[in-house]
């Protein structure tokens, strides 16, 4: 199936139409009006946008332990259908991914499924219990080559443990991805703390519980000179803190989920747990601040926090329901609606926030690249906003020799989300019944199509 592919007339990063020849896992030729190589399979991409394959810094694949909700195979198929070529798999599995053995297991399952590259995230602490450091170095040295560490689902709330983790991972250029949530300020929390939590009688999850941890952690990262990544930023106040930290030149990066770019806490008034997520849906003002921060680069990346749950964990009363939403197959259309249709990002910007920067933050070679040189672009440096402006001069083109990880997207299409039609084993999408713009037509992983005509290849 690898062979040679001739992709005709794709608009790379939304630029002028050009042809791509994909062969041996790389872009073998690129430019307008190319000749079709002998034996190549033809893919008419007129009207389609080509982006580097998307990279998700935050996916829950649930395996091992909760194969009823998702498996590496079902989750990575959903990822490929959503235009992804790599996902970072969060370690809150059962057992937790806190040893070289577990991260290698997840990595091998990903390789066996073959839909996307699976980069396991290692737990910061043993069992994600926040007590003692896990063997971070062993996970870094394993076949899975872990570079991102997180106790996601729980905050590394002990400041001393957080400091040590930040320091320790410097030895292998790792990064700690913090789930910023003060546990004491969010005991039993059910939804955003605001006027609506008061009238609905649901325990509030105040913005300050996120912001206080971010404030502490950017100071810790600065103090020890380490890289810090903030998971699923959800409040306007968090944005201000990250902007301040970046202004100091500290090595802080951040992500936002698609649902926090589109949905608000007003949806909770239905008490439908499909809208229950952690961190919770926030106010309209927070949504606008997050969009602005993603547009100006204060927030580096869109990450899905794809969190599958079986039907029985959502088809119940609010307080008994699990936190989390599906995201992999709706992420690009949601970003299209929230960021592109609003004029906040162009397609080069989408590529930057959904592929290039996440790959760089996670130190993932071969992804998020338009160029063929061997190293990671900007490796070791801080991502800057507007970095892709130069792609206009290059007429927004893949370079010959770049890895053929790419997605072809039809921006003119639209679809109504049908939860039952998604590839995930779970159904908990908050976008069910909504019309979203655009659709993923094809995804290539190292020159091999994983998705064609919007279906598994």
């Amino acid at each position, binding site marked *: 199936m690898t062979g040679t592919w001739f992709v005709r007339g794709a608009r790379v990063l939304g630029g002028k139409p050009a042809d791509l020849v994909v062969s041996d896992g790389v872009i073998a030729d690129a430019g307008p009006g190319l000749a079709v190589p002998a034996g190549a399979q033809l893919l008419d991409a007129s009207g389609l946008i080509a982006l580097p394959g998307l990279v998700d810094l935050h996916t829950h694949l649930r395996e091992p332990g909760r194969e009823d909700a998702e498996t590496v195979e079902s989750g990575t198929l959903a990822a490929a259908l959503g235009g992804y070529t790599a996902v970072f798999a969060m370690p809150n599995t059962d057992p937790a991914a806190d040893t070289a053995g577990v991260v290698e297991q997840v990595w091998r399952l990903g390789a066996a499924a073959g839909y996307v590259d699976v980069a396991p995230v290692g737990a910061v602490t043993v069992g994600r219990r926040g007590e003692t450091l896990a063997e971070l170095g062993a996970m870094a040295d394993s076949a899975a080559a872990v570079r991102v560490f997180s106790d996601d689902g729980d905050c590394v709330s002990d400041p001393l443990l957080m400091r040590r983790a930040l320091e320790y991972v410097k030895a292998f250029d790792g990064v700690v991805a913090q789930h910023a949530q003060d546990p004491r300020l969010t*005991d039993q929390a*059910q939804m955003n*703390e*605001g*006027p*609506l*939590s*008061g*009238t*609905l*009688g*649901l*325990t*509030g999850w*105040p913005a300050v519980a996120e912001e206080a941890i971010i404030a502490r952690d950017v100071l810790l990262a600065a103090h020890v000179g380490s890289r810090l990544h903030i998971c699923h930023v959800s409040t306007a106040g968090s944005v201000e803190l990250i902007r301040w930290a970046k202004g100091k030149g500290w090595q802080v990066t951040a992500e936002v989920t698609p649902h926090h770019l589109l949905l608000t806490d007003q949806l909770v008034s*239905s*008490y*439908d747990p499909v809208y229950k997520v952690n961190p919770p849906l926030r106010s309209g003002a927070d949504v606008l601040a997050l969009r602005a921060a993603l547009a100006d680069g204060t927030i580096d990346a869109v990450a899905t926090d794809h969190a599958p749950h079986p039907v*029985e*964990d959502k*088809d*119940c*009363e*609010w*307080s*008994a*329901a699990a936190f989390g939403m599906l995201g992999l197959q709706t992420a690009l259309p949601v970003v299209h609606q929230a960021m592109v249709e609003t004029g906040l990002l162009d397609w080069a910007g989408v590529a930057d926030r959904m592929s290039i920067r996440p790959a760089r933050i996670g130190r993932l070679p071969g992804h998020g690249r338009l160029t063929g040189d061997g190293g990671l672009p900007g490796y070791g440096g801080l991502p800057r906003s507007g970095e892709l402006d130069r792609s206009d001069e290059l007429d927004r083109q893949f370079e010959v020799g770049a890895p053929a990880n790419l997605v072809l997207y039809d921006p003119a299409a639209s679809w109504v989300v049908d939860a039952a039609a998604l590839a995930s084993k779970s159904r908990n999408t908050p976008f069910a019944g909504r019309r979203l713009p655009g659709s993923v037509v094809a995804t290539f992983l190292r020159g091999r199509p994983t998705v064609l005509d919007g279906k598994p290849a």
Partner: protein
Amino acid sequence: MKRHLLSAADLSRDDALVVLDTAEELALLANRPIKKLPTLRGRTVVNLFFEDSTRTRISFEAAAKRLSADVINFSAKGSSVSKGESLKDTALTLEAMGADAVVIRHSSSGAPHRLAYSGWIRGSVLNAGDGTHEHPTQALLDAFTMRRHLGGSIDGRRITIVGDVLHSRVARSNVLLLATLGAEVTLVAPPTLLPVGVDGWPCSYGYDLDAALPKSDAVMMLRIQRERMQAAYFPSAREYSRRYGLDARRFGLLPEHAIVMHPGPMNRGMEIAAEVADSDRSVIVEQVTNGVSVRMAVLYLLLGGREPAEVSA
């Protein structure tokens, strides 16, 4: 009226007045030797109680039986039912039995909404108290009681609600209903026990009980749970009682005509002194009596008809 009664906000002013007027008519039944109407004969009302509340369950049971409905009491507490899917399964079971109305009490805010709008059952859903959200029939019986004692109308009456507003479904429903009926409601509590966003509620609020009492036509004391101390809402039971309890001295600050209310069960000596609870201006026992009439009215209007019932003398 809407098909379900989930929140006091579901009631327009006209709806609420119809309920109260209907309850007045139905209250006349209590004085008759045979306290029963045939109105809901052949209809099935299920009392679905996931939380212990003998007084509320008995009140609903008496109301449904006086309207000749068949009553099924389903106490989920202590059974295998605890949470999650089981609410759905319980609902499907009740639907299979042909429940025309489900009266639900649940510890989880919004559980009645889930029951009403998840497509599990077709009957009317009546919220008998959900978590820290609402308890609309309690508000109706409180309004009924106030109306009787405050000159036949709630309009312009000054009602002070005191205590743990944050965790009180009674307070939420009362604020909404009393505002709909034109009352001036004031909440008094320590700042820790007022919810975020209370400044957007249709009422005023303050921290000083002594200042509020002289301007009150009715004062409603909310139950305070001693375990709130563990979460640092207030330092001690004694301090709470000293600052927010209705003792004899504070009782003396009320106008002569003012009444004292409590949704029960009371912590005597904590939020209310025994001599105040037992005074002749306390209407606490009457609230319980009125609960049956008001719940009859709600069941009648949800299941029976749209016009006020008439009870021939």
